[in-house]
């Protein structure tokens, strides 16, 4: 087994100054919500630990996760994260191709059994024996199972790997399924989003390298440090929500004043992600800041929840498209009408029996 360089060695080799290195460590500590003391611990870990080998697989996906990842805001991340981890196989980014690439994958699996992290972007389609996604002449699902067998842990990048995303949206012709439906015996960290935020991706990896353990996960397997709050909880437009000030149309006065986009179908209140705190593109902006509601891209099945401009999910039962309020309102209306008719018949019946009993009474008195 070859002696692996430490992260620090790699960084220095890449021409990163120690000062920049420490800046990276403190920024990472902040991003992970750790105290200032952790800066030293992160630096120490990076100076002493060998790089962790990472295999990065691509299934059915659009590469938006990779695109996001390589645009991680911190300059050091942009330059170094790819060297920091020992990215031994990534068919999108690696120089090798064809048989060479496949050999690299086998090499890594053999050499670092039980030590490498398997990062999965995209997901496997299961229909037609997985023929909808072929990697190196074989269905992706086979490559995934093969690589997962000896992995230490799996990172499900993005909504594809975590939830299924667009290829798993109704009617899901290729039967694409998220990674955890195929691999059930390994710890899986879900990092949903379409794509996930770059700093969230690098943050998750850095945490795992620094502390040699998985980040704390929530009920659905997402790292708590980035996915424990909703967009709504940290939205800078929240005061307008609490005040009851809403955008009613995209061109109205409320929109110009930056009111809450709740009525425009913003999914902020139902979406767990770090967009409203970390933001995108070096912290420049995020959808709500740009005047458009959140579409909930990091939530399960977000493509199938109806319009992005409606708060309530479409329900497709009975061959009609409606939401809970339309269905409920119709049912309540129908019941109200039935009650009215029933009441009218009851009154008629009662009038009948009354006059009948009266005539009986009259006959009795006679």
């Amino acid at each position: 087994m070859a002696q692996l360089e430490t992260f620090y060695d790699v960084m220095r080799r890449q021409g990163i100054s120690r000062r920049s290195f420490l800046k990276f460590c403190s920024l990472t500590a902040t991003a992970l919500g750790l105290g200032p003391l952790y800066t030293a611990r992160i630096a120490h870990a990076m100076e002493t630990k060998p790089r962790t080998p990472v295999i990065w697989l691509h299934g059915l996906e659009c590469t938006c996760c990779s695109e996001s990842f390589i645009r991680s805001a911190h300059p050091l991340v942009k330059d170094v994260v790819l060297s920091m981890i020992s990215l031994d196989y990534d068919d999108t980014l690696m120089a090798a191709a064809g048989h060479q690439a496949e050999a690299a994958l086998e090499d890594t699996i053999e050499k670092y059994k039980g030590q490498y992290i398997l990062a999965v972007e995209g997901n496997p389609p299961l229909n037609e024996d997985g023929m909808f996604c072929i990697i190196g002449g074989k269905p992706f699902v086979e490559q995934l199972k093969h690589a997962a067998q000896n992995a230490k842990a799996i990172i499900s990048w993005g909504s594809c790997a975590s939830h299924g995303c667009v290829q798993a949206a109704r009617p899901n012709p290729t039967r694409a399924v998220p990674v955890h439906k195929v691999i059930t015996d390994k710890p899986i960290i879900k990092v949903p989003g379409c794509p996930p935020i770059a700093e969230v991706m690098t943050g998750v990896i850095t945490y795992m390298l620094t502390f040699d353990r998985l980040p704390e996960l929530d009920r659905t397997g997402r790292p708590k440090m980035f996915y424990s709050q909703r967009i709504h909880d940290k939205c800078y437009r929240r005061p307008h929500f609490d005040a009851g000030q809403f955008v009613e149309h995209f061109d109205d006065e409320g929109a110009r004043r930056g009111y809450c986009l709740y009525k425009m179908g913003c999914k902020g209140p139902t979406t767990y992600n770090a967009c409203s705190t970390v933001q995108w593109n070096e912290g420049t902006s995020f959808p709500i800041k740009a005047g458009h509601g959140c579409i909930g891209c990091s939530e399960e099945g977000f493509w199938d929840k109806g319009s992005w401009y409606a708060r309530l999910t479409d329900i497709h039962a009975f061959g009609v498209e409606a939401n809970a309020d339309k269905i409920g309102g119709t049912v309540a209306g129908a019941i109200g009408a039935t009650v009215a008719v029933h009441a009218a018949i009851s009154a008629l019946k009662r009038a009948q029996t009354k006059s009948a009993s009266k005539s009986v009474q009259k006959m009795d008195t006679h």
Partner: protein
Amino acid sequence: MSDNRKSDPPSGFGPTHGVQSSHVTSVYVYEAPLRLWHWTNAAAIVVLAITGFLIGSPLPSQPGDPSSSFLMGYIRFAHFTAAYVFAIGFLFRIYWAFVGNSHARQMFIVPVKSAAWWKEVLFELRWYLFLEKRPKKYVGHNPLAQIAMFVFIVLGSIWMIFTGFALYGEGEQAGSWASRVFGWVIPLAGQSQDVHTLHHLGMWFIIAFIIIHVYVAIREDIMSRQSLVSTMISGERTFKDDDPE
């Protein structure tokens, strides 16, 4: 109060509430705590339905500085407060089923295995479809009402408490009691948005019940042979005739 008042009417199968009263003109059915629960629960549901609807479909925008208004905040506060009243009331109602009289248990225990009971259900259905001329007398709920109470109030309340506090736990954040106790509902339903849909459907479910409940209570008060509306105020079930059947 009438002299021939009895806590339980004589004879019959199983719990006495299913039995048609024979020759009793007044029975004490609903004890004070139960009546108090009924009306608090009714008030809570009214507040919950109105504020809940306004949370889903908010009022037109408020003018002025956002710090000068807290409309959504107050509406949500009213919703959450009423939700606590509703949930605690429901827990109390379960407790009362244990310590109260036999009628307090009727809502929770539906005798689905009793053929005689199902015959009564059929009879009640026929009565509401105008196929029976003369209604029967009941001390407690009639069998059809018993089904409605169980499905709409018992199951409906559980539904709304589970979905509602799961959503409440989201705002209260991970680690809050609501999130710890009911947070599992969200991944079970799919995601937060699905829980919202289920919660909305639950509201309409209960609204449908209220329309029927209010109508039938008033109608039965007029057309049946026993008191309905006043019973939930005084607790006394009075009968309009002394006929044994």
